[in-house]
């Protein structure tokens, strides 16, 4: 074999330094200021407006209204009026028509939504373009189909909508979480007041424009922006019948306390510390991809992220070596560049938390490895990081980091893998990698997690229910099960809800 190999790589700049391929922002027509979306109109909030920034550059994108208690009152009143006068009186088929219309408009404005999402959240455009926005459309299409078939949702004949739903969503998948909440609520006949996260309100504002375009009756969906106190005012509002929250376990617990005894129906989708279990007979190249996708997808800002890698001891070194080689090819940088794999951390606060937990991991004796990549000067960034020699008691193996940080632990037998996987207060998701189908089924059966992926990770579909065990929350979103969160059987619950709601 001839060895004139080095000559070529030495002279030309590396092909792998792909020339910049930025997605154009010309599709965006942003306003300087966004108001609250109440009763079908944009109105100014009465609180002090705040700005939303791009986490990749720290540049301001727009100023956003802040909803105070009076604004929340107005939004809930608009939702109540729309529920009583319009939405609850429409046939399922007619509600479905609106949802189909929204789904199609999301598809039509997909590029604009993807660019806005990447700009405001920091996630790579390839993810917002190929995952988030297509799933948003899929969610509306899916639940549009259910709107006139609620009799078959498994809740008995003629199930009843609840009334006004108060929904609070996180910043990791701003638009997708909005779709997960709004689509089933509307299909089931409820009206909605939703609060996007403080750091990522932008795509919700464009979504409000889509609702206007779709001619959705006024007040059926109301969007209030603001911080934690706005969310608190919303979930504690006496005239809401249903509370749906996705976010941290701490806030979820506070919500569960505050709504206890009010008759409000609650679903909570909280944190996770998923085990990704790799057996020695796993399809190794695909397992490596799955590990990468499990923890580095969306910078690890995923509640179901596979943040604890459990590797069978006899293949530990091989897996770690291959993983490091693979991580070296990940491209961190401008979220709007189509070749970016790892975008920006969503906020300074989150970056600080990831740094703090990583430092703790190191001081607790775990071995830290970080991919060698250039970190941009401005913005919030954290390079993909792996911890090996992690003990089960280490904080990085127990607490949710919510960042691109993977803890690697080992096991020797399937029984040990199951025990370690379940040894967490959370129970949202888990992954199993093995070429042996019977082993996958046997292990899956014993894992206490709401979602279990076999030989894949972080795949979502509107037809598949999603939700957790233990401190990961309760209730399910997605699929037929997701409807149950927004409906009551005709038989028993209606009086209790009315009593709680009308107070």
């Amino acid at each position, binding site marked *: *074999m001839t060895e004139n190999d080095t000559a*070529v790589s030495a002279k030309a700049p590396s092909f792998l330094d792909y020339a910049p391929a930025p997605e154009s922002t010309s599709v965006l027509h942003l306003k300087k200021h966004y108001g609250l979306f109440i009763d079908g109109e944009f109105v100014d909030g009465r609180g002090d407006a705040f700005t939303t920034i791009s986490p990749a550059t720290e540049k301001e994108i727009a100023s956003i209204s802040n909803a105070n208690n009076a604004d929340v009152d107005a939004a809930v009143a608009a939702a109540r009026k729309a529920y009583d006068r319009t939405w609850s009186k429409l046939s399922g088929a007619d509600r479905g028509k609106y949802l189909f219309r929204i789904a199609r408009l999301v598809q039509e404005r997909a590029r604009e939504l993807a660019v806005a999402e990447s700009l405001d959240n920091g996630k790579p455009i390839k993810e917002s373009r190929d995952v988030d926005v297509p799933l948003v459309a899929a969610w509306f299409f899916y639940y549009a189909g259910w709107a006139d078939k609620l009799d078959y949702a498994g809740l008995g004949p003629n199930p009843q909508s609840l009334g006004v739903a108060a929904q609070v969503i996180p910043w990791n998948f701003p638009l997708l979480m909005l779709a997960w909440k709004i689509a089933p609520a509307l299909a089931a006949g409820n009206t909605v007041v939703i609060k996007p996260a403080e750091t990522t309100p932008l795509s919700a504002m464009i979504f409000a424009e889509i609702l206007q375009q779709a001619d959705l009756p006024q007040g059926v969906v109301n969007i209030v922006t603001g911080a934690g106190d706005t969310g608190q005012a919303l979930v504690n509002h006496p005239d809401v019948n249903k509370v749906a929250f996705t976010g941290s376990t701490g806030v979820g617990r506070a919500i569960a306390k505050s709504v206890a005894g009010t008759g409000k129906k609650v679903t909570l989708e909280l944190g996770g510390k998923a085990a990704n279990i790799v057996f020695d007979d796993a399809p190794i190249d695909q397992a490596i991809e799955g590990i990468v996708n499990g923890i580095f997808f969306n910078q690890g800002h995923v509640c179901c992220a596979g943040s604890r890698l459990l590797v069978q001891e006899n293949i530990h070194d091989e897996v770690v070596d291959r993983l490091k080689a693979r991580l070296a*090819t990940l491209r961190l940088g401008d979220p709007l560049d189509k*070749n970016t794999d790892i975008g920006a951390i969503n906020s300074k606060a989150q970056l600080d938390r990831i740094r703090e937990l990583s430092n703790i991991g190191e001081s607790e004796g775990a071995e830290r490895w970080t991919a060698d990549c250039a970190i941009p000067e401005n913005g919030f960034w954290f390079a993909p990081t792996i911890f090996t020699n992690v003990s089960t008691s280490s904080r990085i193996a127990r607490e949710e980091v919510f960042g691109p940080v993977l803890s690697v632990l080992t096991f020797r037998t399937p029984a040990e893998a199951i025990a370690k996987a379940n040894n967490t207060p959370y129970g949202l998701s888990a992954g199993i990698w093995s070429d042996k189908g019977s082993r996958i089924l046997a292990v899956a059966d014993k894992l206490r997690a709401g979602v279990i992926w076999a030989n894949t990770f972080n795949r979502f579909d509107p037809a598949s229910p999603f939700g957790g065990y233990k401190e990961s929350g309760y209730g399910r979103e997605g699929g037929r099960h997701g409807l149950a969160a927004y409906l009551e059987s005709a038989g028993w619950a209606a009086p209790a809800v009315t009593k709680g709601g009308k107070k």
Partner: protein
Amino acid sequence: MTIEQAIALAPAERAVNLIGSDLTEKSLKLHLEGLSGVDAVGLEQRAAGLGTRSIKTTSKAWALDTIIKLIDLTTLEGADTPGKVRSLAAKAVLPDPSDASTPQVAAVCVYGDMVPYAADALGSAWSNGADNGINVAAVATAFPSGRSSLAIKIADTKEAVANGADEIDMVIDRGAFLSGKYGVVFDQIVAVKEACRRDDGTYAHLKVILETGELNTYDNVRKASWLSILAGGDFIKTSTGKVSPAATLPVTLLMLEVVRDWHLLTGEKIGVKPAGGIRSSKDAIKYLVTVAETVGEEWLQPHLFRFGASSLLNDVLLQRQKLTTGHYSGPDYVTID
């Protein structure tokens, strides 16, 4: 378990180093069955992901030139004539008469009996066994089906080498492979490799065609790739181009992963050649990305990666003209062959 599988195999150097000197059908089989499985969904997902890379401006210009340098410009038709081969060879030397900066292709790939015409037509551009210049590659071993006796396959190969072929593209016996006779496939590759030996002791490069479209499963592709390398192949090649599907991105990715693993294990670099079905620059760029991100950029050289293609070159030339002039021309501005 039958004892007949204890048949000794030809002691190919790589296999002996890795499996041991008591190389038998049985030990080969156990070795191949110990390879990690392939998850089809995951493999295809990864290939699709690599396909979304956006290659623009300077990267695109480099990619287009690199594709040309990696092409085995191919004609494999019953209707081939010396005239057609001469015309193809002329195109290999001067792909775009309107732009002298266009690089030359890596090789001209023809049937064995066309080798003398190809070598003659290439003239001074012919490498003739040296490291620079355009190679002449010949398909051999009863291409494309491989359905003939070993003696004929060896004779076929020897004739092509004697005629001046720098590279031999052989086919494996897919029937033997699918019926589990890995030893037969192995011995044949070893024998053909030996037939590639020239009088002066050097060897024509051996590309082993797996015909992945007939192997059907990714697990089979991984086993056949590994087997071909063990038996002494310099290159592993996806397809003859006569069976559909021919080269696909997931299959090529898988073969690149095998080559990467072999390199990690032994330090030795094996080439990969997807062939058939790659017609557009856009598709070919996806392959370049896949090579660079799987085995490394170093593999983007003619002795480690090739495209077996005929119509691809013209699309690359059109794209290249577009980059230089800023506007698209049309199919009449590049030569047919």
